[in-house]
Every structure is written in structure tokens, then in C-alpha cells.
């Protein structure tokens, strides 16, 4: 079946299998490999993308359900002011080690920060419960968010 939606602002039409996941469409058909597959069961969050601004695990999201919606992936984050600030902060704060979880963290955090400009550390930890990082132990990721929030407040 054919499905139309926007990806990072770009109108996109793609032929898919009915039960195909958004992750598979993004990676295999659209060659947007920034979004990662970590578990295929909605546990690790490495596949997080935004659909109409909401963070979803694309490995368990039907592409067909994205019809007419706006999909944002990590590849689009650099063109988003908040996304770019977050990406830079991640590198500056040491919040990236192997980096495989990072795209999922970036998209999740963009949606969190769009909704709440000043989340507390506890609120952030809860919001990030669906994003597993095996490398960092999370604190430098939280530092990156804090730096992003502070940077935006300063401006």
C-alpha cells in the first residue's frame, strides 16, 4: 500500500507492506539509518522518532498509522534550533559514548523540552525511562540537557 507523510518536513510517498514498522520504512526504504534498531520490542528507545511531535518507538509503530502525519527523525534535528542545541550539548557534556542510543535520546528530549522548558532532573529521569543507555550511566546526558536549558534561558 502507498503511504504519504512528511519526514523532517519533506513530503514523502512510499510503497509499504501493511504491517511494516516505521523503523523499517525509515531505515530500509528511505535510507535514513540514523534511527536505530536495538530490541524490536519497544523496550530500549533507540528507535524513537517523533510523530506529530510525540515520541514513539518506531520499531512497534505501523507506518500506515503515520499517514498524513509529520515524522521527525534524528536527521532532521540539526535543522531544528532546539535539536541542534541539544546535539551540541551532548557532545560538549560527554553525553555520547558509543552513541547508538543517542538518536533516540535526542528525539525524545526534543519533544520533552518543547513541552516543558525547565524540567527538573527527576522529571527528566522519568521522561527518559524508555531510553536505555548502556554506556554513560545517564548523568552526562542529564548534564547535556541542563546545559541546553541554561543556554536557551540565557538567550
Amino acid at each position, binding site marked *: 500500500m502507498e503511504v504519504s507523510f512528511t519526514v523532517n518536513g519533506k513530503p514523502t510517498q512510499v510503497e509499504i507492506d501493511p504491517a511494516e514498522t516505521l523503523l523499517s520504512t525509515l531505515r530500509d526504504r528511505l535510507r*535514513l*539509518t*540514523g*534511527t*536505530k*534498531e*536495538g*530490541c*524490536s*520490542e519497544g*523496550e*530500549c528507545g*533507540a528507535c524513537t522518532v517523533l510523530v506529530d511531535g510525540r515520541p514513539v518507538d518506531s520499531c512497534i509503530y505501523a507506518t500506515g498509522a503515520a499517514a498524513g502525519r509529520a515524522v521527525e*527523525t*534524528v*536527521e532532521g*534535528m*540539526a535543522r531544528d534550533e532546539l535539536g541542534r542545541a541539544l*546535539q*551540541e550539548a*551532548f*557532545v*560538549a*557534556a*560527554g553525553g*555520547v*559514548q*558509543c*552513541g*547508538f*542510543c*543517542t*538518536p533516540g535520546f*535526542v528525539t525524545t528530549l526534543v519533544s520533552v523540552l518543547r513541552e516543558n522548558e525547565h524540567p527538573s532532573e*527527576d522529571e*527528566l*529521569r*522519568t521522561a*527518559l*525511562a524508555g*531510553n*536505555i*543507555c*548502556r*554506556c*554513560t*550511566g*545517564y*548523568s*552526562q*546526558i*542529564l548534564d547535556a540537557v541542563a546545559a541546553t536549558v541554561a543556554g536557551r534561558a540565557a538567550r
Partner: protein
Amino acid sequence: MTVIGERVPRSDGRAKVSGEAVYGVDHSEPGMIWGALLRSPVSSGRISRLDTSAAAAMPGVHAVVTAADAPDVRAGWVIKDQRLFARDVVVYEGQPIAAVAADTLEQARAAVAAIELEIDPRPAVVDLEQAMAPDAPLVHPDWESFVPTAGPDFPRRGNIAAESISDPPGVDEAFARAHRVITDEFVAQRQYQAYIEPKSAVGIYREGRYVIHTASQFPFNVRDRVAQFLDVRPSDVRVIGHTIGGGFGAKLDASLEPYAALLSRAAGGLAVKLVNTRTEDLLTCTCRENAITRVRSALDADGNIIAREFEVIADNGAFSGEMPWLTSIALHCARGVYRTGPTRVIARLVYTNTAPTGAFRGVNGTYLYHAVERHMDHIAAELGVDRREYRLRHLFADGEELLNGQVLHDAGILRKAFDAVDAIAPWEKLQAERRPYRGIGIAAAWWLTNPMPGTAVVKLSDDGTVVVVTAATDNGSGAVSMGVTQIVAERLGIPPSDVRVTMPDTDVAGFDAGSQGSRTTRIVGKASEIAADEVIEKVKAVAATMLEAAPEDLEVAEGTVRVKGAPGNAVSLGEVAVVATNTVGPIQGTGSFVTPFPEFNPGCATGLMLPSFPTPTYHVHLAEVEVDPVTGNVRVLRYVVAQEVGKVISPDGTYGQVAGGVTQGIGYALHESLRIGEDGRYRERTLESYRLPLAPDVPRVEFVPLEHPDPDGPGGAKGVGEGPVLLPAAVIANAVSDAIGKPLNSIPITPEEVLAAIQS
């Protein structure tokens, strides 16, 4: 300009945050097809029927291979005990029996499902004690025919895959006259590395060689293993590395690579890609081994430990991998960091019908230190003395002689580490402020920095930047993208952003022993430093002519070569490179480095394959926990680390290793269960049930680095990465036991156990 110790952004950071980084799982080749494996559904049995004809006829299928299509050889890192495919028998759940290559992944999986397989189940050898019994069924009846990969054979027999025994005089005599004997037994489950990027490989058979693309921590090891399995020379295999999405030891040995290689050949040279599903990956990963550790200490009337007996039984799984080499780590950890008099150490590695175990950060140490440190708390409790004070009384000091004859010249750093922890988390204050169901724990460790060799070539480009050619891998730690990069930048006086380090390619780069044992910053950093020094020498020789000065009067700084004391008299490195190319030849330097093993007494033990711990580091951890008396859940309120690192090269990198390692340790201590059923199959099989620590589960780690530079290390660096994971299980168990007033001696500690202990 100095960049050592500065916060320098990692060179691969931008690509990772933008989604541009190409990991092993992202790599593709033109015309690539897909592979899938038929894996044994049972842990022990005889294959009575294997018919691939239906599968071979299915749509899109290019090849189906089994044992019959692979060379009749065994392979292995330390001992060659493993076949590529199960031939007559299966020995663990998940063991590959056949492989299919097809146009699409779906087609490959459909063909795998169509392979007709019948297995007559046999009893699975699972229990470690039973496996060691003289009449136990043998996991490998032909174990005697196994040949060590290199070097002499080592003590092993039947299901005992390796054994190391140290039995100095005086042990029994001390126990006989002991005032008190304290005995403990500890049980630890496996731990799955659970890197977020599943394993993958792309194999291409071309021009008579196998080319492998993979995210491996140790490309040269993968090359050797593929060569063993496919019975070709190592140089007939080329391994090209890619960005790694975590490894923690599990990606040191080959896994999917030999299958991708074989399938490509069978498919007429088409590139074939294999990717593990998460469940496949979990079930077949070379996890940290489960183990039983028994400790007995003889105490005199004053509470000194006058002798010890230390027994470890570790689960090898069905094949050995690296494990035999690690068996003697028990000898190095049997006392922890405390004096114990003559110590008998018996360490055994046992074959079972379970997935092969292997290296996970802090190999063996996590459960050995748990045992030693839980035992110390037990002794202190029996004696009615303060746990911290008891440790300090018996702590190693400078010049401590170890069980293997090695001398720790700087063990006095341990005392400094205890003091450093106390400065930010005062023990007496924490004790005084204890509330019900809160507890504190403390523990200490010493560890090695893996000494194995590394090589680097530093090439000067004509724009003044350099390329470092190395097979070293950065599995996320930043050892390459920060550590090595900063070291080379520092040496050459150029910004870190002008240093580019290549991805590994075994055709191009010299040997490197991989990202393991906390070695990369130190060994590869040093090799790169040596290479950079050769570049500097050559640069000065050429620049001397250009500047009409003597080479010894020149220095490199700020991207130039200049006359010392007359910085205006300078040429850029780029200009030097161009001149060189047209005269003496392009400028590059080579370096390699290996740390010798510290002196030891070879007669101290049998099976002593890892004889001593090079470049020792020292660690003290403290944890404060709170127990929920209603549910038995444990929350880690506070976690403090003091760690000897030699020299902090990259502050973010160092802290990242500490926070990340502690978090893995917290998972090991509390959340991650990996239970093996009586049938040898894992009970936890997905990330839903194999629980990794999440952001709301862990505190911020408070970290105090101690820096006593190693004169041989680049910038003084020692290994950092493994230490942090060694002690969380120990300190958390000590803290929980303290909180509830009952000893808990298993890894992990589950809320069920805690609640049962509270309510008993």
C-alpha cells in the same frame, strides 16, 4: 597549548549525534543479500535429521550451508574446541546448525524455518558441581583431542575446561590453630553485556579472500578466528571495522563473521549480511560467567586473617573462547587488597550445555571481589568491629608481595583512596545518621591494565593535519576519539580536530589487541606517541634546512615547526610535508608498545596463564542504599568512587567510564537476572525480562580521581574502563545486608530475597 586533561569534544561526536555515524549494523554493500542462522532450540541432543533441500528451493535463496560445507576443523581463541556448525550433536541452545543466504531477510528467515531438523534430546549438563563429578556426562567426549591455539597445554580434564591451583605451605596448619574460622559461599548469575547495537557482520568473498565488515572490538582476533574456522591463512581474511554501538567485551571474539564469510563464498561472492535479533543476541552472547565462590578464612585471637582458602567454580558454557586464560585471575583477587597469610586458591572453569561465556568488562573480578568483600563484612561482624576500620588494619601497603610473587610498589595508594572517599562521604557520619532500612557498604579492589601490544602509524598530510593509522577500536569509551587523539595532538602541537584516526583495517594497520582490559588509551596512546616522535624527528630534519637552523634548536607548536625562543622563525607543518614529499619522501612515523608482565613466581600455581597484573590501579567504592520494607526494592541513594587513573587524559572520558561502569555494576547487583533453567535454556530472553538499569534507577556517581602518573604511560595514563564495574555488587550487597541486618550473598540481590530476609 596543552590538551591533556582538557575537555576536548570527541572526534566522532558530531557524526553520532546527527545520525551520520555508520555502525556495523548500518553497513551495506552493493548487491548485498541477507543471511539467517538455524540455531539449536535445545541445549543438548543428537541431530537425527537435517534436511535443507526444501529450504534451498525457496524463493530468493542463494545458498544453504551446514557442517558439511565448512572445513572439518575446530577453532578457538585459547583452545580449539569449537566447530562452526553443530555436526552430530548440539551442545547449547542457540548453537548454529545451518545458515541461509537469500535476497531479503524475510526470505532468509523463511528458508531457515523450512529446514527440517530433528534432534533427540540428551540430558543437559547444567549444574556446575554435578558437571565436575567423575561420572558426569561429558559435554565434549572428545575433549582430549582439543589443541591449544598457541603455547603449551594447560591443566584440564573432562568437563573441567581449565584449572589453576595455588597451594602454598602453611594453610592447613594455620586453619588447625585458628581461633575462629569464617566460611562463606557466594553465587553469581551471568550478566549480559546488552550493548544497544546487536551483533552483525557483512562477508564478501572476493579474489580468493574473505573481506569482513563488522563492528568488532578486536578486528585482528576476528581475522584469526575466521581464518581458523575457514581453514585459511590469517592474511586471507581482511577485517574492516566500523563504529561500534557498545561491546563491553562481547565483541572481542568472532560471532557472526565466519558465517557471513562462508555464506558469501557459497553465494558466489555476493556480499552477505547477518544481524542478530535481540533475543538471538542475548541467548548466544558470550556473557559474563555465572560462578560459585567459596571463601574460608582462619583468624587468630586478635582477628587477623592467618590463612585463607578460596575456591571458584566458573561456568565456561559449551565452548571456551577466552575463558581459560582468565581462570588464574582468582589467584590475583583471592585476598582482595588485604593481607591474609598463606592462601590456597583453586579455580576451575567448567563446561556445561549452555551458551559459551566470555569477557565482560571487569572479567571475573566482579564476583571475586563481591565474595572477598562480603566475606570481610562477615568477619567484621563476627568480631564485632567496624567494617571500614577492619579493612584499613589489613590493607595492602607499598611493597606488598602478592600470592604470585608480584610486588605492588604503590599499593599505599589504596589508603589514599579510602581517605578520598571518606573526605566526601565520612564513614562515621554516615554510620551515625543511619535510619531504619538504610545501609552503607564499602569495598576496595586492585586491577590490571591489559598489557597487550598495539601499533600506530602517524602520517603527516600536506595540509598539516595528521592521520593515525591503527587497528585500535573505540567501542564508545573515547579512548581513541579523545584519548589517543589528544595524546597525538599534544605531542605534535596541533589541535585535536587536526588529528584523524582511521577505522581499523587488518590489511592496512598493524596489530592491535583491541578495546579490552582498559588498555587502549595507554597502549595505543603510547604507540602513537612514539610514532609522533618519529614524525617530529623527521619534520625537524626537513625544517632545519628550510629554516637554516639545527634540528635540536627546533620545536613543534601551534601547527608549526619553529626555532626555540624565536617563534617568528617558523614554517607550518603543511609546508614541511610538501617539501618532504618532493625530497626525502612523505613523512610518517611508526610506534608500537607493549607492557611487560610484572615479575612473578612461575611456580606459585598451576595453570597460571595470566601470570600477573601489569600497571596496577586501585579502587575504593562506597554505596548508601535504602530498602523498601514493603516490597524489598533497593534504591541506591549515593555512590562514591575513588580511583587511581595515573593521569586524566580526558575528563569527560574518564568520568564517563566511571559512571557507566558503576551503572553496569548496579544492574549486575540489583536488576539484571539471567537465570538458567534445568534444561540449560535461559529464562530471561528479551530486554523486557532482562532488566537494564534505567535513568530513574541510578544516582549520580561522585568521583575522585587519584593521579600517580605511570612513567611509561602516555601522559602517565593507566587503564580506567574496567575498575568501576568491579565493586558495585560488593558495596551494594554490603550496604543492603547492613540495612536489613541479614547477610545476602547472591548476585543479583532481588527484592524477593530482601523481603524474605526482612520477614524471616
